[in-house]
């Protein structure tokens, strides 16, 4: 197991400011860690690259869903007003997409927004009211002015002692072990 312990969630270290966190993230990435996260009170510009993360796939997911929302929105109107109960309105054609545009658009936007919210939460593994990392009382600062790196025990390079040493060598303070 090489110093691994399933009881341990990971090691948490605090950094002073966004710049330090960004540099520390780069060093952690370069040291070969991949299962780590950088915690901050606000998103930090350039952090995705520093951590070696790929762009969020959310945009593509929502584009895919929106495509069906458009089709669904238009066919709802078409089915309702032209097939199930044909309504003759001033003798206008039944498939008048111009007249169906406002409702189709409104439905698409609403459905896309609902899915954006739900899929964002799902990708983030939320809602998750409790998480091992909340056991650190110092971590409460993350929503105020604290900047943290947490390296998780699932990482192939993780070793309780060595990881602690590493975090301290890149300038981490208040290093603590987070238990599951």
């Amino acid at each position, binding site marked *: 197991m090489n110093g691994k312990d399933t009881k341990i969630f990971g090691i948490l270290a605090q950094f002073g*400011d*966004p*710049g*330090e*966190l960004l*540099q520390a*993230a780069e060093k952690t990435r370069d040291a070969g860690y991949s299962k780590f*996260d*950088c*915690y*901050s*009170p*606000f*998103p*930090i510009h*350039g*952090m995705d690259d520093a*951590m070696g*993360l790929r*762009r*969020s796939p*959310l*945009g593509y997911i*929502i584009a895919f869903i929106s495509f069906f929302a458009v089709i669904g929105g238009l066919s709802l*109107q078409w089915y*309702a*007003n032209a097939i199930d*109960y044909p*309504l003759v*309105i001033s003798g*206008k054609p039944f498939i008048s997409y111009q*007249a*169906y545009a*406002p*409702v189709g658009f*409104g*439905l698409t*936007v*609403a459905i*896309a*927004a*609902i899915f*954006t*919210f739900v*899929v*964002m*939460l799902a*990708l*983030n593994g*939320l*809602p*998750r009211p*409790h998480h091992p*990392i*909340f056991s650190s009382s110092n971590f*409460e600062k*993350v*929503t*105020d*002015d604290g900047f943290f790196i947490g390296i998780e025990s699932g990482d192939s390079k993780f070793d309780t002692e060595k990881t602690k040493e590493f975090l301290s060598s890149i300038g981490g303070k208040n290093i603590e072990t987070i238990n599951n």
Partner: protein
Amino acid sequence: MSISEKREKQVYTDPPLIQGDPTFHSITEDISVIPEKKTPTWWYIAFAVSFSGMLMLLGMIGYLVWEGTGIWGLNVPVGWGWAIVNFVFWVGIGHAGTLISAILFLLRQRWRTSINRFAEAMTIFAVICALVFPGIHVGRIWAAYWMFPLPNQMEMWPNFRSPLLWDVFAVSSYFTVSLLFWFTGLIPDLATLRDRAKGRIKKIVYGVLSCGWRGGNRQWKHYEMAYLILAGLSTPLVLSVHSIVSTDFATSLLPGWHTTIFPPYFVAGAIFSGFAMVVTLSILARKIFKLEHIITVRHLEFMNKIIMVTGMMVGYAYSTEFFIAWYSGNEYESFAFLNRAFGPYAWAYWIMISCNVFVPQLFWFKKIRTSIVPMFIISIFINIGMWFERFVIVISSLANDFLPSSWDYYSPTIWDIGTFIGSFGLFFTLFLLFLRFLPMISITEVKGVLPQADPHFHHNGKDNGKAGGQG
């Protein structure tokens, strides 16, 4: 001076967005202390007043359901009275919040961070007030569900080619999107309140509402993308919702309504009235909660400039309507506009022109658009003027249409007035609850625009100011 030199200079002369030498912690303190401290006495008084207004609204609606729309001042040519005026008024107000939260976000206008949260809240509450009116004006409220495409025992569907139905969808999707956008923005701030909460109940409530937000970059990555998408989805709504509202009028054949200028004209008016409301509310809020260093005079000045621009667009639309009425050679159309300016509703027309066209011209003076009391008064004038704009449009065209024999004069009853005042009660009840229990300014986003939020701020020696100011 070359362009790059000019730009360089501009970067250095731009004052910081947030004043008073803020740190990340001071921002957290300044904003989250508002819902944390003991409820101030003025809040109870204000809440009692607005809550009474809301109860009055409920009473008015109750009597309306019991008795029918006959209690309102509607008469035979004027079938759309204050209910529609109020509906358009409230929906319009909402638009400023969406413009601030969506369009200014996409345009990277960093000053929006100080005002977007409560402008969005204002949007949601204004849309709630707006939704009340079409809901109750149908008369038979128990049949209001006919507006939605629900399979039913009559095997009937709504008519999707009617602008009134477009309106139902436009406004309800507007409400849904605004609510989700607002809540998404709230999640990290609710986590701040959770982490600061002392009591167990507060901790649980804020903990559940924040969905267990941890602030890791793996979460921020998706979060920022979601925020961007929601901003992108809201952006067309700023233009589409009031355009669709205007088609309620524009697709009719009534002189004064049947014009193609309505969609852009309504959108400009909506943003105009909405910003006036944001200015009114933010002046009060920054004073009461001592947030003058976060919502600075500079923020207010930006908003006043938008008010001026949209006010002139509205003024331009008023004059274009007149020109086209004359140029069309259509006598009914010409009459409709002359009747507005000089007919039985001339008083309302000139209130509208004075408040919406003349008064905002005072913002040409820098002194006026940067001093609190004048801009507060002007914003109130605009709120009033924009209500009268909708009154003029709805009532004057209906009251005097094609046949003089069918004309009538419309006057509201006590029930119309009470319902309108009650809708303010509903609005302020919701707004006061929001101020009391939620962070009224986005803590996360304000921190993000501080110069030290730039990762290069502390580590680039002399380049600090540049990196921080520009962003």
